[in-house]
């Protein structure tokens, strides 16, 4: 913990606090249909898109209409990408002549990008053609983030409109968030990234001769490319001398910009933001971390503006920021502790030395908080408590700023639960923003909050019980459980980051995780929209001294309490058998 680290943290928070109202105010204007700086250059484009799509942007949708549009748009996009990935060998822009993807991997990838998860069971540079990256995955990076924004807009309208039957037009929200927010920000950010050395080209991969060649063992493949097995069924290994390195190229900067800004996280390269071409310098590292929180944080401010009371936004923001800082403090501290098992003074395994513990810890916290899933460090190599923090961040439902749109939706579900439980204690039937919270809303909020919990627990339980799960684990002992738990947590929370350490490109994991990602996305979106619909219809009662205050420190603390208690009560048992027991074991010097 050096002074410059604290300085960097301070600058980070300052930058976040500074950008939040700027972008938040801008977005409020954009989504309220008011004029902004960008209206002149982009207004014609927006109208052109509506004309092309035959959309009447002023036609408002009911909640079910809105939900239908969200589902249709996402499912069609998912199927198109699935087809594209399974036929990429025959499509253009494939300089490395990469083969078609098998169905389970293609399905997993298509669902993963459609749901803003960007779980990658593959390594980009050796699996995806340039066209797949740009016209398939990068498009989803935009549309999945825009979908998140659209859903939270519908929710905010539901909470703030009075006796209204409609929530806005999905197509207009989708277009506006892409056109006015995601595209301009990505463009600027991509240029900045290029200035730091991130590649953006269509060249074939470079080859470089190694200065220091080395020998390694690799699995021996037969003529058909299948691994050769010995009598016991173990892979036969052969020695291989490595003398040259392939250096992948491609249009990386454009995709990295949106993968950070859209909290997608799917890297261009397998190593994601640990790769020098994806995240070359401490400056790019700082900016990439800032980009993760930028839109989710601004959306909270935008909510305050739209609710007519900025404090409503800041109170939620404060809860998010507190969870972020506590998580970061624990993770950072844990990474700085000497490793009792190896005797090393600090754990740098799996970290890029250009970022060190601080840069890695901040990235790891932000990316798991915000459902981004980009990584600049190997989460599998984090200390047990560090790994615990990344998992807890996701288990809380990705509400610490969270995914673009999805994070605020999830947080507002927690707000509804908090208002319901605590609101009763002031002696009124609970209400939020003047609107009564009744059985229908509680039903939906509970589904949205508990769906990821259920998916994580059931998914992990099945995986550890059948051979398909443990079979692919590299690590034994409690760390193996953590690896499986992390995979399902990441998928259910639509995070997409990987603990790794397990081979997930198996039919079992590809299909199970695809299902979990899908449910983890839409089991939240549908109830959120239903709440928006039912809240929009209600009358709002003006606040009085007897109303439960949803601003201020008391409320923020209560909200924190509910989030932590729900998370802790659900996951403490399984976490105690994973990272917690591993922590105690490492303290005792035991490893597996």
């Amino acid at each position, binding site marked *: 913990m050096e002074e410059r680290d604290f300085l960097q943290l301070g600058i980070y928070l300052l930058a976040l606090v500074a950008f939040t109202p700027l972008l938040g105010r801008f977005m409020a204007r954009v989504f309220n249909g008011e004029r902004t700086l960008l209206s002149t250059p982009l207004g014609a484009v927006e109208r052109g898109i509506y004309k092309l799509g035959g959309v009447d942007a002023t036609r408002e949708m009911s909640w079910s209409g809105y939900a239908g549009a969200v589902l249709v748009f996402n499912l069609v996009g998912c199927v198109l990408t699935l087809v594209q990935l399974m036929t990429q060998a025959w499509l253009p822009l494939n300089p490395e002549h990469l083969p078609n993807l098998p169905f389970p991997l293609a399905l997993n990838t298509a669902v993963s990008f459609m749901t803003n998860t960007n779980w990658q069971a593959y390594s980009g540079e050796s699996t995806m053609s340039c066209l797949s990256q740009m016209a398939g995955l990068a498009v989803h990076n935009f549309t999945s983030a825009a979908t998140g924004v659209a859903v939270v807009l519908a929710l905010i309208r539901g909470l703030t409109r009075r006796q209204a039957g409609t929530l806005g037009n999905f197509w207009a929200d989708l277009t506006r968030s892409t056109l006015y927010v995601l595209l301009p920000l990505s463009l600027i950010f991509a240029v900045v990234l290029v200035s730091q050395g991130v590649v953006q080209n269509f060249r074939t991969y470079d080859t470089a001769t190694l200065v220091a060649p080395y020998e390694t063992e690799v699995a021996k493949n037969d003529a058909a490319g299948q691994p050769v097995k010995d009598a016991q069924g173990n892979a036969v290994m052969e020695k291989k001398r490595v003398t040259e390195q392939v250096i992948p190229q491609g249009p990386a900067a454009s995709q990295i910009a949106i993968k950070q800004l859209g909290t997608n996280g799917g890297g261009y390269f397998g190593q994601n933001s640990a790769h020098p071409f994806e995240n070359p310098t401490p400056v790019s590292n700082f900016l990439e971390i800032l980009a993760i929180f930028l839109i989710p944080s601004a959306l909270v401010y935008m909510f305050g503006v739209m609710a007519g009371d900025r404090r409503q936004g800041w109170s939620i923001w404060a809860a998010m920021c507190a969870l972020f800082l506590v998580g970061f403090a624990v993770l950072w501290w844990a990474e700085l502790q000497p490793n009792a098992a190896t005797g090393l003074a600090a754990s740098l395994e799996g970290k890029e030395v250009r970022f060190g513990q601080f840069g890695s810890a901040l990235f790891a916290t932000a990316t798991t908080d915000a459902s981004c899933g980009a990584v600049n460090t190997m989460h599998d190599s984090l200390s047990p408590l560090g790994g615990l923090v990344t998992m807890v961040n996701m288990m809380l439902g990705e509400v610490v700023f969270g995914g673009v749109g999805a994070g605020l939706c999830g947080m507002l579900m927690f707000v509804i*639960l908090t208002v*319901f*439980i*605590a*609101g*009763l*204690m*002031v*002696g*009124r*039937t609970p209400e939020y923003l003047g609107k009564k*919270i*009744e*059985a229908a*809303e*509680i039903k939906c909020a*509970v589904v949205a909050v*508990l769906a990821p*919990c*259920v998916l994580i*627990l*059931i998914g*992990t*339980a099945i995986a*550890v*019980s059948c051979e398909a799960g*443990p079979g692919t684990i590299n690590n*034994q*002992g*409690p760390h*193996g*459980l953590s690896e499986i738990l992390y995979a399902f947590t990441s998928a259910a929370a639509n995070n997409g980051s990987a603990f790794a350490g397990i081979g997930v490109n198996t039919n079992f994991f590809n299909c199970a995780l695809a299902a979990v990602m899908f449910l983890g996305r839409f089991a939240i979106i549908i109830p959120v929209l239903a709440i928006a619909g039912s809240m929009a219809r209600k*009358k709002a*009662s*003006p606040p*009085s*001294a*007897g*109303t*439960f*205050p949803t601003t*201020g420190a*008391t409320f923020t603390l*209560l909200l924190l*309490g509910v989030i932590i*208690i729900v998370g*802790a*009560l*659900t996951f*403490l*048992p*399984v976490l*105690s*058998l994973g990272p917690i*027991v591993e922590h*105690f*074991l490492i*303290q*005792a010097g*035991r490893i597996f």
Partner: protein
Amino acid sequence: MKPKSSILDPALIRPAILDSFKKLDPRVQWANPVMFVVLVGSLLTTFFTFAHFTGFNLQLTLWLWFTLLFANFAEAMAEGRGKAQAATLRKMRTTTLARRLVKDREEQVAASELAKGDLVVCEANDVIPGDGEVAEGIASVDESAITGESAPVIRESGGDRSAVTGGTRVISDRIVIRITSEQGNAFIDRMISMVEGAKRQKTPNEIALGILLVSLTALFVLAVFTLPAFAHYSEKAAGQSGVVNVTIPVLVALLVCLIPTTIGGLLSAIGISGIDRLVRRNVLATSGRAVEAAGDIDVLLLDKTGTITMGNRMAVAFHPAPDIEEGYLAASAQLSSLADETPEGRSVVVLAKEKFNLRAREMHELHAEFIPFKAQTRMSGVEIPASDVQPAVSIRKGAAQAVQNHVESLGGEFPIAVTRIVEEVSRRGATPLVVAEGRKTLGVIELKDVVKGGMKERFAQLRRMGIRTVMITGDNALTAGAIAAESGVDDFMAQATPEDKLRRIREEQAAGRLVAMTGDGTNDAPALAQADVGVAMNTGTQAAREAGNMVDLDSNPTKLIEIVEIGKQLLMTRGALTTFSIANDVAKYFAILPAMFGGLYLATGAARGPLSALNIMGLHSPESAILSAVIFNALIIIALIPLALAGVQYRAVGAAQVLRRNVLIYGIGGLLAPFVGIKLLDVALVALHLA
């Protein structure tokens, strides 16, 4: 009808214990999913214990059943208290004969055979056989059986005092009553079914809370029953076997500790006792929903007369005209009022006595002739013939304009100064009465509607609770404004007609506010029906009583404030116990998780596994830890029964303050209490060699 039993009346405990066992019926438990899960768990554990008998399993099984019984006991106690009241009420439901009028001929029928629209005759000492309206006659009625008020009340046909209630007794005179409700649907029947909880439907908030509790329960079922999978994986990973205790009794113990049994077990008791508290204050609600709505009230519409003010204008000051002694004015005013039996007249006499110690004189000694108030003259007064001691005196008092006309018609002059006093008094919202003797104007009596004591504080309290009070009065705006200012209400409606009331309620509701009002007259009925909480006075008309969703048997308009408090208390109790229940879980994890997993990854030669570090309470053994958690979970239900029945303490302060206080007590308290409780139980179990 005012049983003043303590919260845990010994006479109620015995039947409640019996009921606790009867309620183990799965069909009863099914209505409460949280406790149904406990029932299923208890059954599973019982079977398991038969198959694998150990002292530990036996104790665990017993305590699980106790958990169920304790929750049942809470509900049975709440119902028992209601039933005790219902029994008192039922005694009043007469089996005596009613005298039905058929074509002017009386016939004797059982009260239970009366139908709506029947006419019955009641004379002195007859019990009124059913709810109805006086169709003919006037009588005094003893309603103490229902209201507890011993003074008889007058009931007469027509007007606003025509409603009578079955079970009350006619004391004098004869009335003919038209029965207005079918038997079994009368007031008393509804009251009985409400307090017994027989027809108690879940209120909207209860349903919403129920959903939350069921969802949490489902989540915990999942969290607990996925544990064996993780545990077995961990055993394999640790290269151990049989070190994790995930037998059925232990899993059920963990589950029962985690699911919100505290609130689940007490939820219906809280609801029943809320209604019960209303009945104790002599308010009859037609639904639990109305009680809940009372907690949400934003605006109270209160009638000025009788609620905010004493209802009668009283003389408060004498303002003499120039050159007139105040004492002389007082004496004349007193003289003119001696025979005036109106409250206003009496108050003049009282004021004169208070201020100048003027004793009332005997009218007949003076041979005085009283001139009563007439609508045409708008004056009253007195004519005293000339006698030995004094010449003839003619005194008039009345409205300023009338007295001015009177004085001027006699050739007198109405002083400008008096006109000014009159204006001054009017501006203060008081009523000026001008007194004249012959053609000489003596001065002005100031009459004022007196605001009841303590109302200002009450309204300030309401304001802190976030409730606005609106005074409704037929007075002109000037008078209304003055009284509003004096009583401290937030707003007033002057010269309000029933239509104005209705319109005001609709306006408030359109702005999203919940409105409560009281009313008694037939013309209040639409407003009572429109209000979210409409409290009809029992002295009111049948129409008003049908329109409201509550009836105040004491006919006390300020009762509305208490009703609001009861509603708030009900919701607060629910919220507080839910918070407490959930906060409790944290400690239970720290008891049970190390007990289950303490042996995992045990190093050779070590006494405890690494996860024993989570045993921060330092509990003696896995068995004692699990037992302590389960026992604590069961006992806390018993411990909180008084709170559930009495409701959490309510104070009229702002929401933010109430919240902080309750979060501190039930949130933080709920987090810490089980750490202490479980540790103490653990120590006790070890001392008793039970674990």
